[in-house]
């Protein structure tokens, strides 16, 4: 249940395994302006159901800040960068 009904167009980025599952590396999505990080995840999975398989090993980044999936409320700005972040393996 969204807190208000305004929407914003955001850029969603997919990396590594999540880009393979989504079949894309980048797309524009129209999303509610206010939503929890879990609702944000559900909106993304609704579009790419195969991402459900990596739930539990994924976090999001919103405005290049890590956000775990949960009840924290986000406020998305126009053009916000949202990223699906599978487990890291740099180094």
């Amino acid at each position, binding site marked *: 249940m969204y807190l208000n009904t305004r929407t914003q167009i955001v850029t969603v*980025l997919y990396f590594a395994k999540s880009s393979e599952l989504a079949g894309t590396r980048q797309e524009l999505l129209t999303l509610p302006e206010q939503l929890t990080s879990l609702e944000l995840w559900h909106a993304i999975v609704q579009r790419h159901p195969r991402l459900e398989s990596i739930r539990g*090993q994924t976090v999001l980044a919103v405005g290049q800040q890590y956000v775990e999936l949960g009840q924290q409320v986000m406020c998305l700005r126009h053009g916000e960068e949202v990223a699906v972040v599978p*487990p*890291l393996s*740099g*180094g």
Partner: protein
Amino acid sequence: MAASEVPGADHVTLSHEQLNVNAAVEAVTSPSCGAVSLFVGMTRDNFEGHRVVRLEYEAYESMAQAEMKKICARARCLWPSVGGIALHHRLGVVPIAEASVVIAVAAPHRQAAFEATAFLIDTLKATVPIWKKEVYEKGQCMWKENKECSWSKTQE
């Protein structure tokens, strides 16, 4: 000049080219720092008996740069005597036995340099959005997961 006043710069780069260890040392060297510690991460040729032919790295580049700068700042906070820091990570295809990451830390004395270097590679693996795919000889491949990453299923 007191140890805590050593001037230091952060040299953070992501690159598709081969990494140069001498360049990392030169970047961090200063006349007041007597010790440079380095870590070089290389591609290994096997994983649990599977023959690895190459690695492929990708990054969320702008965020990776920002996170690398953050961990430099955290290292300076923990080891104030640290001078120059270089974090160089390679992207794209990395052949076997070539470097994927080079970390160099200068300090007036070696203890701080050693400790900061270990901290930087541990923290880079935990927080910098870079991913590595191992490609095996029969063409299979696997996205790796650092055990240092808190949302990895292999996390301890």
